[in-house]
C-alpha cells in the first residue's frame, strides 16, 4: 500500500479546523454592511391569506425592508423548480403545483414562508416580524396519507384531485399475477416507514450578496451541491445567468440529504439583496428547521410475497402511498419511485415484481431524500416481509434468504425492476456477519438475558442499494431533469504541489482526505502537498454535488480520470527530460522512472518543467500541467451487505436496548477504512434512531407536535453499543476505482435488523409485527395485548 494512498486509514485533514472551532460555516461569514433576514412563517397548515399588512413592520426600528409573496411575484420571480418529473401509469405527467418562495394567497403547511423582514440586527428583524399583520382564513387540512386519501378530503391543490400527485408503476403486473397464481403460499405485510426530520447539527443558513458595481451575485449557502443551486435558482427562479451568479457552500455541518434541495430562503436572500443593494443574511433556528427543512420517509405500503413450496420467491407485489408534503421538493417525486421501487428485488432472485406507487400531497413540510432516500424504505419492507415469510414457512430466516440470493456466478444480474446489478457476494457478507456477531452462541446470551429478566432477540437484514447516481441517459429516461455526471480538475502547481477542484462537496464525508489519498496514490505526491477544493462555483468547473453515496463512485472516478490525463502528460514530459519513450516511463515512489533502469526524474521537476518550459517538447506538447475530466457513470453501483442486531427488552417497561450490532458491508474498494467505519457507525446510529426513537408527529389539523428536541428523540451515544464492523469486497466492475460508496448503508440496513430483533425477542408472545419507532409504550402495549 502506498503511504497515505488508497486503503490507508489516514487521519482527516479537515478535522483540525472542525475540532478547534476554526471551521467556517455560513453563519460564521459576515459581509460588510449586511442586513439580517427573518422569515414570517405560517402558523396554520392550510389557510387563505385574507390580508397581509406590513406597515407597522416596515416602520419598526432598524427595519430596512419587508417583502411578501406579492412583491416577488410582481417582480417576476419564478417558483422553486422540481428536478425530477414522474409520469403516471396512464401517461399523464405528475401534478406540478407552483412553489413560490414566499406564499401567494394561500399557505400550505405550518412553516410555509409568508414574508421576510430585513433589518440592521437580527433582534430588530425578529421584533418586526411580530408586527406583520396577517389575517388568515383557516381552511381544513390533511396531514396524513390516510386523511389525504379519504373520500371528500380537503384538497391541497385543486389540480391534484384525491391529493394524488402521480400514480406510477414499475415491473410486470401480468407476470407477477401469474407468479402469484402458482404460489404455494403467499405472505403479506402492511408496513409503515415512519416520517423523520433530518436534524443535521448545523441548521440551514444563506447569505445573498449582490454587487451592484458588477451586477453580480454571490450566494453563500449550506448546500450539498452549490452548482445545482446555481443552475436551478439562476435558470428557473431569479433569471440570473451562470456567469453572474457564484454559489459558495463552505464548511457545512452535515446534510444527510436535507441540504440538497433548492430552498426558498436561498432565492429570498439573493433576490432581496438586489432590492436593497446590501448583503442579506438568514440563519435558521432549530425550531425553524423543524418546519422548513425537508422531511424524510413517510410511506405506507401493502406488500405480498409469493413463494414456492421450498421457499423460493416467485413474485412480489407492492402498493405504496408516499407522502410528498405540500409542495414538490427538488427531488421529492424521485425518492419513492425511481430510488425506491427499483430496489425491490433486494439481494434476491425474485423473477416477477410489480410495484404501484402513489405520491400524495398533504399539508405538511415537503418530503424529500434523507440518508438512503428510497432504499431504506425498500429494504425495510423486503426484510420484514422475508422474516415474516420465514415464520410462515418454518424455514430459518437466514436459510430462506440464502436460498433466494443472487449467486456470484449470476452477475451481471438484470432485476425485474430496471436495475442491472454488476457484482456481489451476499453469502460471503452473511458468513462474515454471522461470525463477527457470534451468532451461533445467541441462545446462550438469550438465557443469560432471561436470568436478568430481559427478553433478548436477534434480527438479521440483508440489503442492497443503488448508489453512485447516475448514468445521465438512464436518469433522463427515468425523469431526471439534470445530468448526473461529475467533474474534477487536477492542477499541478509549478513546484509540484497539487490542487484538486472537485464537483463533489464534503459536509462530513472527508473528501479532503480521501480524494487527497487518490492523488497521492496516482502521482506519488506527498499527502500534505495536496489540497482538495470544493464547494465554490467560482473555483470548481462543475459538479452535481454529494448525495446518494456518489462522491467516490462518480466524483472520485472523475478525479481518477483527470489524474490519468496528468500521468499521461507527465510521462511525456519525463520522456523528454530523460530522452526516453513515454511508453517506457512509469510512476514509482514519487518519481518518473525509465522502466528497468534507475534513471528517473522527480515529479516536482516534471511539474517545474511544465511551467518553465525551457527543456520541453513545445512542438508537440503545451506547457502547464492541469487536466479536467467529466465522468458520466456507466451504471449505478450496488453496495450490499448483512447487518445483525441483538436487542434486550425489559418486559416491564417495554424499553428496547440495542446490545450488539454487527455490520458486514461490501462497499467495493475501500479508500480510507477509518472513514468508512465512521460512515457505518453514523448510518447505523441513524437507522437505530428511526427504528427505536425518532418520529415526526403531526396532529390531524397539520400542527407539528414533535417540534423540538424535547419531543423529537434523536439517538445519543448512550443509546447505541459499540459496533462490530467488517467488509467483504467485490470491486465494482464498471469504474476504474472499483468503489461502490458507503455513506448510506447503515441507515438502510439497521432499521430492519433492529425491528427483526425486536419481533424475535417478543416471539414468545406471538407478536409478529412492531411499527417504527418501537417506543417503550408500543412494545409494552403489544405485550399487554398479547397476554390479555
Amino acid at each position, binding site marked *: 500500500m502506498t503511504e497515505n494512498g488508497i486503503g490507508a486509514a489516514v487521519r482527516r485533514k479537515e478535522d483540525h479546523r472542525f475540532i478547534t472551532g476554526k471551521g467556517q460555516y455560513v453563519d460564521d461569514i459576515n459581509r460588510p454592511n449586511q442586513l439580517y433576514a427573518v422569515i414570517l412563517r405560517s402558523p396554520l397548515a392550510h389557510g387563505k391569506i385574507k390580508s397581509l399588512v406590513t406597515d407597522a413592520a416596515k416602520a419598526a426600528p432598524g427595519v430596512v425592508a419587508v417583502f411578501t409573496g406579492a412583491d416577488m411575484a410582481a417582480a417576476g420571480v419564478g417558483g422553486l423548480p422540481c428536478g425530477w418529473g414522474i409520469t403516471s401509469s396512464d401517461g399523464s405527467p405528475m401534478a406540478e403545483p407552483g412553489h413560490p418562495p414566499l406564499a401567494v394567497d394561500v399557505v400550505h403547511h405550518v412553516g410555509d414562508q409568508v414574508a421576510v423582514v430585513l433589518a440592521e440586527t437580527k*433582534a430588530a428583524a*425578529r*421584533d418586526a416580524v411580530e408586527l406583520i399583520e396577517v389575517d388568515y382564513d383557516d381552511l381544513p387540512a390533511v396531514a396524513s396519507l390516510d386523511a389525504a386519501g379519504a373520500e371528500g378530503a380537503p384538497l391541497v391543490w385543486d389540480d391534484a384531485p384525491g391529493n394524488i400527485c402521480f400514480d406510477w408503476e414499475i415491473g410486470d403486473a401480468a407476470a407477477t399475477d401469474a407468479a402469484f397464481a402458482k404460489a404455494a403460499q403467499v405472505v403479506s405485510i402492511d408496513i409503515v416507514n415512519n416520517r423523520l426530520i433530518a436534524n443535521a447539527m448545523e441548521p440551514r443558513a444563506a447569505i445573498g450578496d449582490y454587487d451592484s458595481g458588477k451586477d453580480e451575485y454571490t450566494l453563500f449557502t449550506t448546500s450539498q451541491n452549490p452548482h445545482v443551486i446555481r443552475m436551478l435558482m439562476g435558470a428557473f427562479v431569479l433569471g440570473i445567468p451562470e456567469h453572474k451568479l457564484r454559489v459558495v457552500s463552505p464548511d457545512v455541518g452535515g446534510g444527510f440529504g436535507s441540504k440538497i434541495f433548492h430552498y426558498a430562503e436561498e432565492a429570498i436572500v439573493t433576490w432581496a439583496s438586489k432590492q436593497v443593494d446590501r448583503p442579506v443574511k438568514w440563519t435558521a433556528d432549530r*425550531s425553524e428547521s423543524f418546519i422548513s427543512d425537508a422531511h424524510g420517509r413517510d410511506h405506507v405500503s401493502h406488500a405480498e410475497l409469493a413463494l414456492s413450496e421450498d421457499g423460493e420467491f416467485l413474485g412480489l407485489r407492492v402498493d405504496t402511498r408516499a407522502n410528498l408534503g405540500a409542495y414538490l421538493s427538488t427531488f421529492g417525486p424521485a425518492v419513492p419511485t425511481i430510488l425506491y421501487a427499483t430496489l425491490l428485488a433486494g439481494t434476491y432472485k425474485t423473477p416477477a415484481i410489480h410495484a404501484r406507487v402513489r405520491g400524495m400531497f398533504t399539508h405538511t413540510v415537503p418530503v424529500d431524500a434523507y440518508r438512503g432516500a428510497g432504499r431504506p424504505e425498500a429494504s425495510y419492507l423486503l426484510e420484514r416481509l422475508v422474516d415474516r415469510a420465514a415464520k410462515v414457512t418454518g424455514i430459518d430466516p437466514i436459510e430462506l434468504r440464502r436460498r433466494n440470493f443472487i449467486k456470484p456466478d449470476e452477475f451481471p444480474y438484470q432485476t425485474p425492476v430496471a436495475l442491472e446489478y454488476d457484482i456481489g457476494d451476499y453469502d460471503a457478507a452473511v458468513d462474515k456477519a454471522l461470525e463477527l456477531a457470534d451468532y451461533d452462541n445467541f441462545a446462550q446470551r438469550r438465557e443469560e438475558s432471561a436470568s436478568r429478566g430481559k427478553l433478548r432477540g436477534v434480527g438479521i437484514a440483508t440489503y442492497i442499494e443503488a448508489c453512485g447516481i447516475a448514468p445521465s441517459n438512464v436518469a433522463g429516461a427515468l425523469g431526471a431533469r439534470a445530468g448526473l455526471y461529475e467533474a474534477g480538475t487536477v492542477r499541478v502547481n509549478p513546484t509540484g504541489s497539487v490542487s484538486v477542484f472537485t464537483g463533489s462537496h464534503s459536509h462530513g464525508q472527508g473528501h479532503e482526505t480521501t480524494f487527497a489519498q487518490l492523488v497521492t496514490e496516482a502521482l506519488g505526491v506527498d499527502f500534505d502537498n495536496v489540497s482538495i477544493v470544493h464547494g465554490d462555483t467560482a473555483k470548481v468547473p462543475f459538479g452535481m454535488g454529494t448525495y446518494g453515496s456518489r462522491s467516490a463512485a462518480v466524483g472520485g472516478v472523475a478525479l481518477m480520470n483527470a489524474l490519468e490525463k496528468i500521468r499521461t502528460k507527465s510521462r511525456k514530459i519525463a520522456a523528454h527530460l530523460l530522452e526516453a519513450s513515454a511508453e517506457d516511463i512509469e510512476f514509482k515512489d514519487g518519481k518518473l522512472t525509465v522502466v528497468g533502469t534507475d534513471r528517473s526524474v522527480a515529479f516536482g521537476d516534471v511539474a517545474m518543467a511544465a511551467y518553465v518550459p525551457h527543456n520541453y517538447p513545445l512542438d508537440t506538447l503545451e506547457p502547464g500541467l492541469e487536466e479536467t475530466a467529466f465522468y458520466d457513470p456507466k451504471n449505478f453501483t450496488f453496495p450490499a451487505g448483512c447487518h445483525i442486531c441483538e436487542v434486550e427488552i425489559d418486559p*416491564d*417497561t417495554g424499553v428496547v436496548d440495542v446490545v450488539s450490532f454487527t455490520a458486514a458491508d461490501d462497499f467495493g474498494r475501500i479508500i480510507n477504512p477509518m472513514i468508512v467505519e465512521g460512515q457505518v457507525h453514523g448510518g447505523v446510529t441513524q437507522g437505530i434512531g428511526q427504528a427505536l*426513537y425518532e418520529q415526526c*408527529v403531526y396532529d390531524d389539523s397539520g400542527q407539528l*407536535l*414533535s417540534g423540538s*428536541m*424535547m*419531543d*423529537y*428523540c*434523536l439517538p445519543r451515544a448512550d*443509546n447505541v453499543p459499540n459496533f462490530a464492523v467488517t467488509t467483504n469486497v467485490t470491486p465494482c466492475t464498471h469504474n476504474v476505482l472499483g468503489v461502490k460508496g458507503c455513506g448510506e448503508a447503515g441507515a438502510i440496513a439497521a432499521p430492519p435488523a433492529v425491528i427483526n430483533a425486536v419481533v424475535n425477542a417478543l416471539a414468545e408472545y406471538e407478536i409478529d409485527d412492531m411499527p417504527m419507532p418501537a*417506543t*417503550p*409504550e408500543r412494545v*409494552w*402495549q403489544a405485550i399487554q395485548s398479547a397476554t390479555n
Partner: protein
Amino acid sequence: MYEFNYHRPTSLEDVSEILAANDEAKILAGGMTLLPTMKMRLAQPSDLVDLSAIDGLSDINDTGDAIEIGAMVRHADVAGSDIVQKAIPALAELANSIGDAQVRNRGTLGGSIANSDPASDYPAAVLGLDAVIKTNKREIAADDYFKGLFETALEANELVVSVKFPKPKKAAYAKFPNPASRYAVVGVMVAETDSGLRVAVTGAGACAYRATEIEAALGKSFSTDALAGISMDAADLNDDLHASSEYRAHLIGVMAGRAVSTLGG
C-alpha cells in the same frame, strides 16, 4: 429573546426591592428552564434578577439530623457532594439523573422546585423525604408546597433560600426517563423517614404527589410483592406524545417496585 434589564444583586433585600419595583421581573437561578423559554419568545420578563452573586445560597450543610442545601446549589454539586452521598445517596443519584452534564452544571435546586415542572425530578425528593422549604419569608412543609401544574405555595416575590432534607432511614429513587428530553415520564421516590413511609411520584400528574395506596401497601409489607395488586388510577395522569396515562399508571408501579427492590424489599 426580547430585551430585558439584567440585575445581579448581592443581597436578598436588593432582590426584594427590584422585584417590588418591577412586576414583570423574573428571578434567574440556573436558567435551564427560563432561558430556553425566553429564547423561544414564550416569556418576556422586563427584568432578570440573577441570584448567583448572593452569599449564603450555595452551601450544603449537615445539620446533624438533616442535610440543608442552598437554593442556588447546582445539580452537579449535589450529585458530587460527599455529604449528600453519605447521608442521602438517593438524593445525590437523583440529582445526577437530571438532564445532562451541561444542565447539571447550571441548574439549581431552588430553581427546579420554584418552577415545579410536572416532569422534574427534585419535587419527588422534596416530597418523598418530607423536606422543609425555607424561603425569604417563612418555612413551608413539603406536604403543603406542591399545589398544581407549575403551582406552588410560594407567594409573589417569595423565593426559596434553602431546602432542609431530614436524613431518612433509607430512600431510593427510580426514574423512567423520557428518551428525548430525559425528564421524568415517571419518577418515584420511596423513603422511610422519621415521619413514616413516604412514596412520592413525579412526572405522572400535574405536580409531585404522594401515592397513598402504595404507602399503605408498603406499610403492611415492605416488598415488591405488596405492590402486586395495586393498579393506579390513570384518570388524572398526564397523557402526551411520549406516554399515555395508562402507561404512566403502569410505570408508577414498576418504578415504585424498583425503588423498593433497591432497598431490599
